[in-house]
């Protein structure tokens, strides 16, 4: 029993790391553009499908497909930002919401049209890993390590490079950033591209152990919203810690309450946070 509990606990951390990765993408876009990208889950879905088709058609290992998925989804996101989002950047929040929600529907339906509603999976054999007698799911472990490495690279980019620091400056005060000579429009483009690129990378990791189907993004966007609210809007560390907490919560509630209830438990937590701590754990309160 104890062994099983420990295994479930580790599972929660592993999945939580991946949750943190795609949530960071969503949170960054919100921080810099002040837009909620409802289509974020669909970029995860696209990452999964690209990994799937590269594997099935060309035999490319999903981890190698990262080199294609990230740049492809970066450019797709950046192009969408420039052509569509930039037009509504000062528009009312309803218009912005409809635009990204429209993209969600478009991408889902394109996926149905081209790839049908079939559930697919990447069938690849991973050797079983056992740490101190505990069995750990290898694909999840790979996904976790990959996510943490990606998060570290993202953090280094945001803190050690000029462009990354510029993104943080725009996040905090776009007008002052513009006065410093920062091209805020370009920062929005880069940030949106990074956000969607990260969603794609997370999608590749998830595809190692999860079914792939057109509406798969829905589960993840829901989780990302819960994590953003739990960790705090615009908080990097909040998304990281929030991802781990929600991953753990899902894992433990699947064990104790039943797997069919895990989403419900996450939603209950979501409502409780909104009631009692709407700014989240690391939230900075009302933004200007």
């Amino acid at each position: 029993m104890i062994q099983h509990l420990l295994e479930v606990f580790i599972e929660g951390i592993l999945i939580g790391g991946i949750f943190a990765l795609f949530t960071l993408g969503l949170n960054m876009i919100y921080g810099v553009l002040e837009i909620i990208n409802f289509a974020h889950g669909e970029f995860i879905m696209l990452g999964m499908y690209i990994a799937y088709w590269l594997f099935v058609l060309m035999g490319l290992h999903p981890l190698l497909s990262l080199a294609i998925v990230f740049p492809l989804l970066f450019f797709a996101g950046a192009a969408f930002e420039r052509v569509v989002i930039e037009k509504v950047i000062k528009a009312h929040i309803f218009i912005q919401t409809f635009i990204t929600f429209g993209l969600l529907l478009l991408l889902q339906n394109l996926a149905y049209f081209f790839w049908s509603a079939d559930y697919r999976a990447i069938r690849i054999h991973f050797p079983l890993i056992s740490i101190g007698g505990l069995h750990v799911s290898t694909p999840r472990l790979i996904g976790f390590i990959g996510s943490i490495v990606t998060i570290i690279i993202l953090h280094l980019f945001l803190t050690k490079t000029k462009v990354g620091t510029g993104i943080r400056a725009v996040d905090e005060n776009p007008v002052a950033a513009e006065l410093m000579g920062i091209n805020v429009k370009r920062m929005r483009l880069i940030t949106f591209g990074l956000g969607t690129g990260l969603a794609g990378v997370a999608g590749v990791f998830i595809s190692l152990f999860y079914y792939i189907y057109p509406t798969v993004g829905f589960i993840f966007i829901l989780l990302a919203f819960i994590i953003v609210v739990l960790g705090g809007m615009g908080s990097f560390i909040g998304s990281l810690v929030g991802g781990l907490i929600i991953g753990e919560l899902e894992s433990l509630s699947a064990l104790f309450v039943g797997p069919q209830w895990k989403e419900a438990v996450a939603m209950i937590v979501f409502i409780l946070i909104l009631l009692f701590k709407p700014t989240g754990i690391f939230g900075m309160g009302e933004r200007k």
Partner: protein
Amino acid sequence: MLGIKNLDVKYGDVQVLWDVSLRVDENEFVAIIGANGAGKSTLLKTIAGLIGPSDGEILFLGEKLNGLPPHRIVRRGVSLIPERRELFGNLTVYENLLMGGYTVSKNEIEDRAEWIYNYFPILRERRNQLARTLSGGEQQMLAIARGLMSKPKLLMLDEPSLGLAPKISSELFRLIEKLNSEGITILLVEQNVKKTLKIATRAYVLENGRMIMEGESEDLLRNENIRKAYLGI
């Protein structure tokens, strides 16, 4: 150096500046004074490109500025230190300087930061601290230092003494004078009319969005209307 001709500025349907003209020569120290809501900040924001004028022309070193986005205007050598400082509070002092020097090339930026640290030794001490943890006076120093990183030819300051203790604001005025004596052209907006007229060589008086007076600071200090309206004498 800077020439503004017949500038009209509107916020939506509300006109804020009417037919404003102004000139700042190289190495000059020019002030704009006026009451709250006279349009002083709007004028600086328009020069910096944050607001587009509805009519008129802004020339800097012979080239038109209006129509350019703010980040391009910075590259031309115009720097605005905004009202209320607008620092990046969650970035360190050093990162704030780095952002101020966004338009400066990589090899130059460290030299520039070194020059700044010699000017403001306190910022060197605090360089790894988050900007929001500085005191009010230090934050104003950082705001000016950040604005100097881009090597501006024209430095515009919007109410830099706002919220500072008298002693610190005197220090600040001395600093601005020093920057001017080292060759940086200054355009200063201030509510502290007396102190401002003592250090600026020339000044404009803005009232309800219109330039109502212009002259040497000394003359304005002696002017009966100015003394009544702004100095309370």
